[in-house]
């Protein structure tokens, strides 16, 4: 396996599009194939902005630095191009798309990856979808429901994991996927990520979280602490445990100083 990092973020500065507001103030980060990185930080530290920026959210704008994915300049690409290159973001707040079934959505997503004029085989797709749902222990009827429309918080997360399982990304960004989740929903997410990692050990994960508890279910290789738009500490899982004990206050003070 090629061990060169799949994602390289260098000196990234960014803010809200069309506003003079800096959120990221020089972020450096490298994630190797198969690695799980967690970014922890208090509210407003910029950790979620980083995930959205990598996925290509139009509400954020890079003002300096670079993001390379698999050797390509990600910042130059449209969100759909990034997805096709292998980036996937599980949303903190998945969007409701009334009238569009999950199956139809996923079929279109896979179709979009084909060359012009090439047609996705519907039987192959059905088979893939069934197989993926079985892997995640999901009820087949779920795929016929309209995307996130009237879903509970847990069902929305389940849907994010199913999409990830079907699209098989090289890099999964989990944008505060654990916020506001009860323990059952948290485990759905964790089990899903772990199952997909088992299947494809080369899949990298960037886990954005405010809390330590999801890290009891998904074991990170590296934990970063982000405060004030910068990564202020990186280390092993023990960093998360220290945070749990002492909170972000120390980092905040250090950063302010």
């Amino acid at each position, binding site marked *: 396996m090629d061990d060169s990092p799949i994602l390289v973020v260098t000196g990234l500065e960014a803010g809200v599009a069309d506003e003079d507001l800096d959120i990221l103030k020089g972020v450096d980060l490298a994630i190797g194939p198969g690695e799980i990185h967690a970014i922890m930080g208090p509210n407003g530290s910029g950790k979620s902005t980083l995930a959205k920026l990598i*996925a*290509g959210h139009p509400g954020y704008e890079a003002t300096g630095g670079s993001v390379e994915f698999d050797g390509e300049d990600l910042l130059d690409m449209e969100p759909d191009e990034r997805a096709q290159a292998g980036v996937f973001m599980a949303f903190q707040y998945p*969007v409701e798309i009334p*009238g*569009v079934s999950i199956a139809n959505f996923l079929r279109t997503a896979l179709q979009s990856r084909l060359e012009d004029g090439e047609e996705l085989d519907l039987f192959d797709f059905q088979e893939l979808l069934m197989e993926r749902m079985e892997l995640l222990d999901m009820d087949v009827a779920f795929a016929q429901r309209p995307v996130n429309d009237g879903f509970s918080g847990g069902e929305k997360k389940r849907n994010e994991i199913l999409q990830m399982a079907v699209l098989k990304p090289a890099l999964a960004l989990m944008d505060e996927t654990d916020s506001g989740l009860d323990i059952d929903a948290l485990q759905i997410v964790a089990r899903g990520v772990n199952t997909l990692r088992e299947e494809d050990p080369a899949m990298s994960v960037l886990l954005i979280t405010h809390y330590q508890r999801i890290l009891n279910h998904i074991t990170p290789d590296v934990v970063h602490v982000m405060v004030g738009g910068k990564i202020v500490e990186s280390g092993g899982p023990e960093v998360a445990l220290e945070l749990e004990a002492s909170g972000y206050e120390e980092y905040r003070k250090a950063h302010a100083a």
Partner: protein
Amino acid sequence: MSQATAVREQAGRKIGRSAVIEQGAGDPAWLRARRAEAWDIYEATPLPSTRSEEWRYTDVARLLALDGLVPTAGGAMAGRALPDGLRRAMEQDRESAGRIVDVDGSVVSVELDEALAAQGVVLSSLREAARAGVPEVEALLATEAVPASDGKFSALNAALWSDGVFLYVPRGVRVDRTIRLSRWVSQPGTATFTRILIVAEELSQLSFVDEILSPDFSTVTLANTAVELFSRAGAQVQYVSLQRMGEGGFYLANQRTLAERDSTLDTLNVALGGSVGRVDLNARLLGPGANSDMLGLYFGDANQHFDFNTSQDHVAPNAHSDLLYKGALDGAARGVFRGIIRVHDGAQGTDAYQTNRNLILSDTAIATSLPNLEIEADDVRCSHGATVGQLDAEALFYLMSRGLHREQAERLVVLGFLGEVLSKLPLGGVVEKVTQAIKAKLRYV
């Protein structure tokens, strides 16, 4: 008579009293008198102007030069092979219980399941039914539902109609499969006046799909339709209008539904084609337990202009009506929805709802939504709501973040948005056909 001769002969016709007399040649006396009276009303009624609330956004004086139009006489296309566009649309349809084909305002073929005919179901050219002395036609044609006195265009239609449909389902007879009308307008610059009269007797059941198509025209071409629907006690009726005319088409329809005790009378208006589409729909709930679901779907682009004027008249107590009209507008298209719920004095226990939602896809498209309530009873449940929104940027990003191109994402959102309406009336083949037509319009590949 050859087709060329027919067109030449028609070319001299104008909308006027002599055309009314010509149109009535061969009609029974009562019908000739009804036409003449309707023409008098037409002449005495001013053209609706944008100064009136109901026509504020559709300037017929500017959009439609009635004097220049050639009213079709009917009969001209009989015996000819069906136009390709019409044939293709018909081939998409599923099995039906009956089918009637109308070309340029004249019925060219009628088919009805023999078993149903034996049970007393009548599917006929309206002109022939009137001439054959069918009593329901004399009693109900342009009298209770869409009389000439209703307005300028109702009067014009009652005076000049060339043909249409008479469908009668006797008491207790249930027609499981859909009955279809397939209409085609071929001649630019013509005015076609069609009537549809449907009577569902007590405890009967039917569904009727009225599809109209045409090629693109370089001049304004009018298709005016009066639709009269009667559901007697306990009957169940579904009426679907699919308007898929080409450019230049001016579709103008007056529809009225009269629902008696414990009957269901549902409608779906789909507007995809034509340059201008104006539909006036009045649902009257005349008996306790009556129910009308009123669905509408429109998708306009380029310079298309759709105007829906709906009313829900709760005359009887304890009736239910529920309206949902959804439209997507692209290009410089314009959508107008004006709806009113009227709860009449004494109509206690009314349940009436009205929702209009619009999705704007471009900077130049416009949607106007004017819901209204007029309540004269005190024990009622009514609500109305209207929204005009743009494609949600967050939804687009969500879809694109899964790899969909921007256009694919937009199409999916539009299809889902409009699809909600179709999912409420799962009528054999209609959902697929309309979905296909929307996809074609979205240049979906």
